[in-house]
């Protein structure tokens, strides 16, 4: 008889996955693997929240169709102010996230084989050489960093238009718009793939863990590296 009083159940020795996940990742606990440690998750959520703030304060300036969004922060004048500062916060946290993931996101040998359209067909099995992040995730990471920089620089011009020449202001309007459209579509895809499309993924950003089966399916090489193949 175990100490829990349930036949067959044993008290897990050592810390739980969530406890370990506070400052460690890529560790196996029972049937789970810690994928993102607490700090990474917090920074990612700061990025997510500031992105949503940017969308809700930027869209009403983009088009009056979204004027209702400005009401959520107290009107268009507030939205204009809020947008600039949430943009700064977004850039800050995205850079931070960049630093945290920089090394993991380096492209490696097998990555050129990745095809996004092929990937979206959801065929199995996955390429056995896919590590902790697949090439699509890496591309998204770098594209997000670059787009963030474009949005930041053009945003600064739009924030203080009077300090810049007409040519730069015009360029900034166009870049900020195109950057946003691309960013928005990519984020929709990112949220979709991280929730409905690939069950078991979302909890890696909440609990910080994924199941072994999930890792074997989506990131086989990472699974082998972390578990030793079991």
């Amino acid at each position: 008889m175990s100490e829990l009083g349930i036949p067959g159940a044993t008290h897990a020795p050592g810390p739980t996955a969530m406890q370990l996940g506070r400052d460690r990742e890529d560790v196996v606990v029972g049937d789970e693997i810690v994928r993102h440690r607490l700090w990474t998750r917090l920074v990612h959520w700061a990025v997510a929240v500031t992105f949503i703030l940017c969308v809700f304060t930027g869209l009403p300036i983009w088009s009056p169709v979204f004027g209702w969004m400005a009401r959520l922060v107290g009107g268009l004048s507030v939205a204009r102010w809020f947008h600039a500062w949430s943009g700064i916060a977004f850039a800050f946290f995205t850079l931070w996230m960049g630093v945290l993931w920089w090394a993991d996101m380096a492209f490696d040998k097998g990555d050129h084989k990745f095809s996004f359209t092929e990937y979206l067909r959801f065929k199995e099995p996955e390429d056995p050489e896919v590590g902790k992040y697949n090439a699509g995730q890496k591309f998204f990471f770098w594209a997000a960093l670059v787009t963030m920089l474009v949005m930041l620089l053009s945003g600064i011009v739009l924030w203080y238009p009077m300090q810049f020449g007409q040519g730069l202001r015009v360029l900034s309007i166009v870049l900020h718009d195109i950057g946003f459209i691309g960013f928005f579509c990519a984020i929709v895809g990112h949220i979709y793939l991280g929730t409905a499309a690939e069950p078991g993924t979302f909890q890696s950003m909440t609990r910080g863990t994924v199941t072994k089966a999930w890792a074997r399916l989506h990131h086989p090489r990472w699974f082998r590296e972390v578990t030793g193949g079991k």
Partner: protein
Amino acid sequence: MAIQGLEIRRSSASLRGTGTGIRNLPRVAKYIDTTTCIGCKACEVACQEWNDLPLVPTEQVGTYQTMPTLNATYWNLIQFREVGDQNNGFSWLLRKDQCMHCADPGCLAACPAPGAIVQYSNGIVDVDPERCIGCGLCETGCPFDVPRYSARTGKMAKCTLCVDRVTSGLEPACIKACPTGCLQFGEKSDLLAMAAHRVEQLHKDGFAQAAVYDPPGVGGTSVITILRHGDHPEWYGLPKDPTVPPVVSFWKRILHPIGYLAMAGAIFGAIGHFMAFGPKKPKDEAKSAGSEA
């Protein structure tokens, strides 16, 4: 409506129903004859006084000009330039710099705040500070570099063509103050006739290039300026053939629809993908979930 008695022809960031559609008033205009301007700056003072604008320190730039450029609290500036070439000789050119009140205003087209810039039925283009968000996009849309941001109020400011006086049947303050009569106010059609007459006089006087500056690229302006060197408006600091910057219409007419389509496409694409390819689940989990059910 901001001012009673003046119907709105157009207002910024309005997707449907941009005007009130009643009382199509005749367009008013300012007439500026730069050939009889003596650069006395009475119009500058009158503008400051009537609009109760705080003083801006003058800035000596080595010419007869009060300051280098317009200011959020200095809406009317007599610009001074020394120009000359072999054909035209040497001259001192004075020009009244202010909002041109375009018939097709680039500021209004670029403005993202509903109703922050309005064009009244009589052609006056005005900023409603209550709705202005101070983003400065109007400045990007303006071919004449007129709107200015006021750090004190957080809003844009520019000449109102004394819309408050005009509504009450008075001429703008600058016109009232002009001692030489080089500034006149009235219906634009009358003033254009007067300007044509004056240009004819100038032609007879030997200024063969004299012309009226009423640029068609912005649909004409409610500030018409008589230039002795009509073939060289840039000598006066006026753009030769001003138009609303093409980026404004590119932005609103092309990028906006593309944006709507792309955003909707991403959302519906995700839904469609889910229905076509379904979730990608680990096999063993799916199996155990199936056996539980």
